[in-house]
């Protein structure tokens, strides 16, 4: 069972700044973490390996400092990790990101399952997983909450939908995105941390991947953030004071004035 887990390093805080030129997040100099949803993806990958054997490869596209997220992934049980980093990748939207990840996955060749988190904490789109499956031309299941069975090249999973679960069977290889209900991610182990410190993490750029430079990064992106703003607060509130009866009277007269009752 060869598992590829795609993960992203995201700001560990909501206190982030936006680059006014590109309207993208400024990622330098802020505390970073592995995108929380991706930690469930990694845990599930490691559990599959423990169940069926094989290996887990963690994959991340990002600036050079994203290597830290991959080292953490190794401390949590990933066997190998590859960083996709190149100046040309900067400013990528979900499509260009998925294209780049697909390039790396094609280079890795052997895989049975690709696991992603359902969405990231910063971009929040949830698009990279499904786009990846399109590009790799393999089946896709979103919001997986349980992998029930894997046998004879088939996988049966539970997928969370608004009112319950769907049971889906899919041939492998496949791409899935997972929800936090799927597991409780483990903490790192001391042996894992020690291994992660000496792990060799190759860095692949456009050249190593042999992909089309025009289809990566900002230039390969179909979408562009043109403005980031806080929505204006349009509602006004008023807190009534005094005894309960007085408050009810105030509320009633206000509603009456507004012609609502």
């Amino acid at each position, binding site marked *: 069972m060869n598992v590829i887990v795609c993960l992203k390093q995201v700001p560990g805080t909501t206190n982030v700044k936006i680059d006014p030129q590109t309207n993208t997040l400024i990622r330098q100099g802020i505390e970073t973490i592995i995108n929380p949803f991706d930690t469930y993806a990694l845990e599930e990958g490691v559990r599959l390996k423990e169940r069926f054997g094989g290996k887990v490869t963690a994959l991340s596209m990002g600036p050079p400092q994203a290597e830290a997220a991959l080292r953490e992934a190794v401390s949590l049980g990933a066997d190998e990790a590859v960083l996709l980093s190149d100046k040309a990748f900067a400013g990528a939207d979900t499509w260009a990101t998925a294209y780049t990840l697909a390039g790396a996955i094609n280079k890795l060749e052997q895989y049975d399952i690709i696991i992603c988190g359902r969405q990231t904490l910063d971009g929040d789109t949830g698009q990279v997983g499904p786009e990846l499956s399109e590009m790799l031309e393999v089946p896709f299941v979103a919001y997986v909450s349980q992998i029930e069975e894997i046998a004879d090249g088939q996988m049966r999973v539970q997928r969370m939908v608004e009112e319950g679960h769907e049971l889906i069977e899919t041939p492998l290889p496949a791409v899935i995105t997972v929800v936090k209900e799927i597991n409780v991610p483990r*903490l790192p*182990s*001391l*042996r894992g*941390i*020690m291994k992660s410190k000496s792990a060799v993490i190759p860095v692949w750029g456009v050249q190593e991947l042999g992909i089309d430079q025009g289809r990566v990064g900002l230039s390969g992106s179909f979408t562009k953030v043109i403005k980031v703003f806080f929505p204006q607060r349009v509602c006004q509130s008023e807190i009534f004071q005094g005894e309960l009866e007085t408050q009810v009277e105030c509320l009633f007269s206000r509603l009456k004035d507004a012609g609502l009752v």
Partner: protein
Amino acid sequence: MEYFLSEEQKTIKGLARRVAEERILPVRAELDESEEFPWAIMKDLADADMFRVFVPEEYEGLGGGCLELCLVVEELARVCSAVAASYAVNALGCFTLMEYGTEEQKRKYLPDIAAGKRLAAFAITEPTAGSDASNIKTTAEKVEGGYVLNGTKQFITNGGEAEIYTVMALTDKTRGARGASAILVEKDTPGFTFGKKEKKMGIRASATRELIFRNCFVPEENLIGKPGLGFIQAMRLFDKSRPGIGAQALGVAQGALEAAVDYAQQRIQFGQPIISLPVVQDILAEMAIQVEAARALVYAAARMVDSGAKKITEGSAMSKVFASDVAMKVTTDAVQICGGTGYMRDFPVEKMMRDAKITQIYEGTNQILRNAIAIELRKRKARTE
């Protein structure tokens, strides 16, 4: 304060803190209330390789020493002393084996202990043998192919939960303490049962039980080291393990200090946080000084043990006595700072105060240890005269 810990030691301490905060903190009050043995947390500690810390590398451990063990115990006790005790006693339980066991014995037991698959415990105390540890009555009569144990051990930490017990018993009762030997007994050995689980003042989630031996046969190969040397082995063991109790005391004191500072910062009286009152500041400052002094002494004693120094009784006893007295004082002050809130069981400091008390009592009462320190002082004086 800078203690010049190595990168590896910092990693161990950091991960122990993470396990404590993420896995123990959310359940500590519940565990204290239910007095349930924290099996889920033992699993988390095993997964994080914490049981490997004190086991040599040849037996799938990480080869750490007394200081590494102390760092883990400190961090666990900072959040929950009951978990710290349940963890630390494993080191105590396999230390005699590591030090005096044969290659075969070590191969048989240590990898499982390192992986956290089986817990260990150490049994010396009996109804007649507390501070007077040499007055044990449990016998291990030599028979064809092994020993037959009879007797009762009391107040055994991890009793009933652990699977591997190092038991001190008389293989030659005519010789008293000189006839004592360390014998390994596995749980489920016929003739080996457990008494009731004790209801304790503090460290309530830890398990404390009697071990009862009634014609319990163990094979010859379960004897650790030479017969008759058990008591000496045990005394050497305690010399090396006492900084660990110091670390447990230090951790609980640290936790209480932090809780007191948090509370003093938040609690508004007379229109200001009580931390701005000089009388409160005075108590907090004194607590901080005591905690830091305890840390310095515990780490120094642990390093002394790891250096392989021969005469360690005094320094090791000092670290345990001082840190445990500090823990009792600091946790009591923490309850005082938190006032009525601190006295309530919804708030963590009263548990810390209850938990602190045992550190002044077990692995040598502070009175017995002061006595041991005084003996060393007299011996030294006698040598110079």
